[in-house]
C-alpha cells in the first residue's frame, strides 16, 4: 500500500527556468524558480538580455541627440520618457518653455498613460486566460496611436518632445479627434470593467495574490501604480509637480482591497483602470485651456549647460522615471543614469511570489507591469 502521508515522501527542491523566451514574461526575462512541489520558495530574476548600453551611448552624443534613444527604453510610454528627459534638461539649463508647449506635453503624456495602461491591462487579462479584453484594449490603444501619428508621424517612437519645445505643433484636427476619442473611450472603460474587472474567475485568480504591504513597497523603492495600489497617495504629479500639472484638478486613486487585501494583484490592476479615468479628466481640462503660441521659440540653438548635476523626474505610467545627468560644461553629458521604474519594481518579485504556485507567478508578474526595455536599457 502506498503511504500518502506527505512526511513519508522524500521531496527535493527543483529549479525551473522560466524564459527568456516565454510569452508571459513580457519580454526577454529569465526567472529561476526554486520549487517545493508546486510551491515557490525562491525567485531569482536574470536580466540584461536587452542591454543596449544606453548610458554609454549618451556619453558620446550631444544633448538633443539623446532624445530618440530615450524613446526606446520604455517603448510603451515613449512620450513619458521624452518628457522626463526634457524636464531634467530644462532644470539643468534653467529655461522656461512656453505654456502651449507644457499643455501639449501634458496631453501627450496622459494619452500615453492611457495607451500604456491599456496594454498592461489587456495583456494581463490575456496572461490569465481572458483573450477578448486584450483585443478591446488594443483596439482603443490604436486610436491613441493614431492621434500620435497625425501629430508627429510616428506611432510608437516619436522624437516629439525636445529640450525646450516640440518637434511639431498640433495637427489642426487633433483637438477634435481627441475629444471624439474621449467620448468613445469612456463607455469602453465600463465595458472593460464588466468583461474583466468584476469577472468572478478573474477576481479569484488575482485577489489576495501577491500582497505588497506599503512599508515593504517604499523600502524597495517601488513607485507608480504599484505603490498606490498598496494604499498610499504618492504621485509625483501631485507631490513634486512638474510641467503644468498643478493647474489641473484630478484625484489619485489608491488600492482599497475591495476583493481581498490592500495591495494584492487585483488592486494593482484596478488602480490602473481608475488612473485612466483621471487621465481623461486631465486631458479634457488641458484641451479646454490650451493656449496659443509658438512651440519652438524656446528651443536652444546649442545646448551647453554649465558644469553641474541634476535629477529630474516624472510620473511615468510605470512609476517614477528619473534622469540623473552630470554635465562637465561641454555639449555632451559626462554621465547619464536612468532610474527606470521597472528596474526597481522587478526586485520585489521574489518577495511577492514566495509561497504561491507557478500559475500565480504569471499573475504577479503581469500585475507589476514591467517593460524589459527600460530594465535593461
Amino acid at each position, binding site marked *: 500500500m502506498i503511504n500518502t502521508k506527505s512526511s513519508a515522501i522524500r521531496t527535493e527542491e527543483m529549479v525551473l527556468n522560466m524564459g527568456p523566451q516565454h510569452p508571459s514574461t513580457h519580454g526577454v526575462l529569465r526567472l529561476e524558480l526554486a520549487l517545493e512541489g508546486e510551491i515557490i520558495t525562491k525567485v531569482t530574476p536574470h536580466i*540584461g538580455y536587452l542591454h543596449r548600453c544606453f548610458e554609454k551611448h549618451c556619453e558620446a552624443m550631444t544633448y538633443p541627440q539623446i532624445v530618440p534613444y530615450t524613446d526606446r527604453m520604455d517603448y510603451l510610454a515613449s512620450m513619458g520618457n521624452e518628457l522626463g528627459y526634457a524636464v531634467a534638461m530644462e532644470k539643468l539649463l534653467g529655461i522656461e518653455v512656453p505654456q502651449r508647449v507644457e499643455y501639449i506635453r501634458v496631453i501627450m503624456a496622459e494619452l500615453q498613460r492611457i495607451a500604456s495602461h491599456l496594454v498592461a491591462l489587456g495583456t494581463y487579462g490575456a496572461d490569465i486566460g481572458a483573450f477578448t479584453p486584450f483585443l478591446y484594449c488594443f483596439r482603443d490603444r490604436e486610436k491613441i496611436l493614431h492621434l500620435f501619428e497625425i501629430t508627429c508621424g510616428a506611432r510608437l517612437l516619436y522624437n516629439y518632445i525636445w529640450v525646450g519645445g516640440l518637434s511639431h505643433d498640433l495637427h489642426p484636427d487633433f483637438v477634435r479627434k481627441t475629444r471624439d476619442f474621449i467620448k468613445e473611450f469612456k463607455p469602453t472603460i465600463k465595458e472593460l470593467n464588466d468583461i474583466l474587472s468584476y469577472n468572478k474567475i478573474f477576481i479569484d485568480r488575482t485577489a489576495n495574490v501577491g500582497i505588497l504591504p506599503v512599508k515593504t513597497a517604499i523600502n524597495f523603492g517601488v513607485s507608480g501604480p504599484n505603490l498606490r495600489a498598496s494604499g498610499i497617495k504618492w504621485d509625483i504629479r501631485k507631490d513634486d509637480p512638474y510641467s503644468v500639472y498643478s493647474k489641473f484638478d484630478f484625484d489619485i486613486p489608491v488600492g482599497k482591497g475591495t476583493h481581498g487585501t490592500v495591495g494584492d494583484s487585483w488592486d494593482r490592476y484596478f488602480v490602473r483602470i481608475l488612473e485612466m479615468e483621471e487621465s481623461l479628466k486631465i486631458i479634457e481640462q488641458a484641451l479646454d485651456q490650451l493656449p496659443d503660441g509658438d512651440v519652438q521659440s524656446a528651443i536652444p540653438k546649442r545646448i551647453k549647460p554649465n558644469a553641474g548635476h541634476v*535629477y529630474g523626474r516624472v510620473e511615468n505610467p510605470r512609476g517614477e522615471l*528619473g534622469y*540623473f545627468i552630470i554635465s562637465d560644461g561641454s555639449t555632451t553629458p*559626462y*554621465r547619464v543614469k536612468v*532610474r527606470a521604474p521597472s528596474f*526597481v519594481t522587478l526586485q520585489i518579485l521574489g518577495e511577492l511570489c514566495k509561497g504561491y504556485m507557478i500559475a500565480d507567478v504569471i499573475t504577479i508578474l503581469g500585475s507589476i507591469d514591467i517593460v524589459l526595455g527600460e530594465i535593461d536599457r
Partner: protein
Amino acid sequence: MKNTEEILQALKENFPDFSFELKSDLPVEGFIICNPLVIDKISHFLHDNPELNFDSLINLSGVDEIKANQLSVYYHLESTELKHKLVLKVVTDRNSPEVASVTDIWKGANWHEREAYDMFGIKFLNHPDLRRILMPYDWEAGHPLRKDYENPEFYQGMKVPF
C-alpha cells in the same frame, strides 16, 4: 521638511568624528560628501531618525571621475512622509573602490549597487549578492562605464562584432 543645511547640521551633531562637506556652489542641487566606509551608519541614522525619516532610496548611481582618479557614488534619498530630499555623495579610490552597502537599510539598493558594481567595478562591502546584473556573468573585459574601458576583441572565443 528640512533643507540640506539643516540635515547637515543634524549629521554633524550625531557623528562628530566623521567628516562631512556640503557642496552647494554647483547649479541646481547641493549635496553632502561623506566617507564611503561609514555610509551605512549614516544611512541608518537618516532612515531611523523620526525627524529626517528618509524611508526611500530613489536612485543610486556610480560615476567615474577619471581626472581625479576616483570613483564616486551618488545617493538620492527622499522621505515620502516629510517630503524632503537629500543627495549624498561618497568618493572612493579608483584602484581599489570600496563602499559600504546600504542594502540592509533600503532593500531597493540591491540592484542599484549590483549595477554600479557591474558598470564601474565598485565593491559594495557586505552586499548579499554582488554579481554582474546587465552584462553577462562571465564578462571578463572589465567594467564598461569606466571612461578608459575598451571593448574586447573576443568574448568567450567569439568575435565581438562592433
